[in-house]
């Protein structure tokens, strides 16, 4: 099979669109929404206008049918301007993916089409206050009563949870069954007993809304169940195997921004009578950032390619996500170091990069969980 690293003409255009959008629409407001800890609806509306919101929805349901490689190209560009803002469309794709993977034709039409007709979001609710990484230990209960389920419990750290038109909620019909008891239910906004409480005081990614979702006797029709009872866990894992790849892409974007900011500062700032970029101590840091960016991007593209080819990609997406988020964190850290005291204050953009990208090491499976996935793959061979 030939190895071809070139982007198609459409991918180049897509990249140019995302880059321009990031620069003109996101960059000017990123610091403001970070400061206010508020969801930037005007940006979401513009994302919808240019077709970049929920673009993974297939054309049959009114979307653009973007492939994973397209998505990572966009993700890197948007995250370059603000990882927190990029998390909003990314988390919406996270909500959409289980419907794509396990939804019936009718469900896809019902849930996905409206997300292409207006600026609207989806969300994905797996973590709970008492368990995150141990997803099979979830406690939210779904009890079948006739043609519906009754949902009770609490979900935690849910991106877009309060904004989403609907949330894919993973619950158990019987905790003793562990992962075999999990069911995936689409809970629509405004369903009685469903409440979203915004979590305030986040360290970074403050433009993305993160919520605690509370379910009190929420009636969910059986038609809203994705797959069968007991398939929920598999749906969740297959979803995350894919959606970790955009997290990696976002990390690459943050790392690239860190390098650009560090480079700019190093060329301007003088010490001992010359720009600090002349010093090897600084040059090595810049070179290390570059090594990280190039390798992480290459591997992210590879993971995306595997996913697009329908080839196994669980371990590749885990490697991409863990690796890219770590090189990005280190790049942001070194960018601050290069800025010295100026890097530690909000007047310069680099401290935000570190605050934002820290989350990339945590959400959609901590990097420790990613290593478990990778190790499992190693040991299975």
């Amino acid at each position, binding site marked *: 099979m030939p190895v071809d690293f070139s982007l198609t*003409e*459409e991918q*180049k*255009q*897509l990249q*140019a*669109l995302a880059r*321009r*959008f990031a620069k003109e629409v996101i960059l000017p407001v990123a610091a403001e929404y970070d400061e206010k800890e508020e969801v930037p609806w005007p940006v979401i509306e513009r994302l919808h*206008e*240019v*077709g*970049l919101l929920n*673009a993974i929805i297939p054309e049959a349901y009114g979307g*653009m049918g*973007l492939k994973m490689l397209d998505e990572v190209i966009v993700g890197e560009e948007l995250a370059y301007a603000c990882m927190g803002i990029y998390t909003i469309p990314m988390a919406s794709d996270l909500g959409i993916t289980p419907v794509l993977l396990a939804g019936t034709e009718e469900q896809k039409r019902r849930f996905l089409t409206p997300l292409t007709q207006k600026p609207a979001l989806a969300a994905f609710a797996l973590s709970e206050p008492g368990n995150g990484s141990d997803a099979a230990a979830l406690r939210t209960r779904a009890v079948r009563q006739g043609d519906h389920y009754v949902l009770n419990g609490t979900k935690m750290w849910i991106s877009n949870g309060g904004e989403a038109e609907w949330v894919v909620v993973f619950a158990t019909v019987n905790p003793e069954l562990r992962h075999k008891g999990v069911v995936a239910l689409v809970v629509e906004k405004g369903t009685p007993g469903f409440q979203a409480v915004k979590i305030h005081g986040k360290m970074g990614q403050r433009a993305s809304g993160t919520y605690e979702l509370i379910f009190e006797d929420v009636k969910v029709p059986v038609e809203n169940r994705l797959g069968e009872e007991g398939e929920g866990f598999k749906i969740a894992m297959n979803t995350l195997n894919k959606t970790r790849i955009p997290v990696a892409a976002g990390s690459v974007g943050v790392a690239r921004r860190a390098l650009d900011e560090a480079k700019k500062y190093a060329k301007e700032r003088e010490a001992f009578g010359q720009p600090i970029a002349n010093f090897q101590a600084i040059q090595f840091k810049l070179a290390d950032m570059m090594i990280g960016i190039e390798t992480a991007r290459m591997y992210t593209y590879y993971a995306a390619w595997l996913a697009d080819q329908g080839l196994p990609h669980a371990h590749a997406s885990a490697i991409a996500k863990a690796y890219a988020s770590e090189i990005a964190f280190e790049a942001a850290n070194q960018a601050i170091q290069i800025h010295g005291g100026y890097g530690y204050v909000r007047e310069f953009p680099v401290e935000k990069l570190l605050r934002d990208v820290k989350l990339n090491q945590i959400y959609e499976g901590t990097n420790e969980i990613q290593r478990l996935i990778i190790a499992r793959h190693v040991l299975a061979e």
Partner: protein
Amino acid sequence: MKFVAVIRQVPDGESRLKIQGNRVDLSGATLILDQMDEYAVEETLRLKEKHGGEAIVVGFGPERTEEAIRTALAMGADRGIHVVYEGFADPVAVAEALAGVIQEEAPTLVVTGGQQADWDSQALGAALAEALGVPVVSWTTALELEGETAKAKHDLDEGAEWVRVRLPAVFTTQQGLNEPRYPTLPGIMKAKKKEVKKVAFQGAPKVEILEETIQEKTRLQKILDGKDPVAAAEELVRLLHEEAKVL
């Protein structure tokens, strides 16, 4: 009706330029649809949306210019024509090359950028108008069709004026004419299926580039602290008077 936008691909104003062998080397630069030409594309799209017909984008330049043509198609232009030429060509030669292609389309009007962001030329619209034997309205800030004529507002050296012109005519753009739309994702996907006809360059450049250099003037960079505005102003005026001798 047919509305033609004439476009070129140029380096982004913010990308760094290098000189390689006495010539600007664009290999590392980000290349974009010239922003002044982008107004032209947008204007033809608005005219088409209002009056019906077809928006055609005509691009001149090397093979890579197709990217800029595709951008215009993604914005909504219906089809493209690419006159391919790999080197520098002056506006007179470009107008010569494009005139035949444009005449064949018999357009209602032609719009192009007021100034090119690479060769800093302002003459293409005028030269093209001469080649087509029609009037030119340069630095246009407003344009309305009125039957067989168009009413346009355009900048002069001092001030501006409203003119009426019988169509066809050539208009060159000025900032303020419109706010160009983004090439949307659906637009990009649709553009894939749109036709871009390739035409070989006919003609010979009349101007030749001998050498290109980047001469960045070294600035003195004497920056004063303005905490005491009166003292800083006093010092600045002294420097301008005694050192720079410009006051």
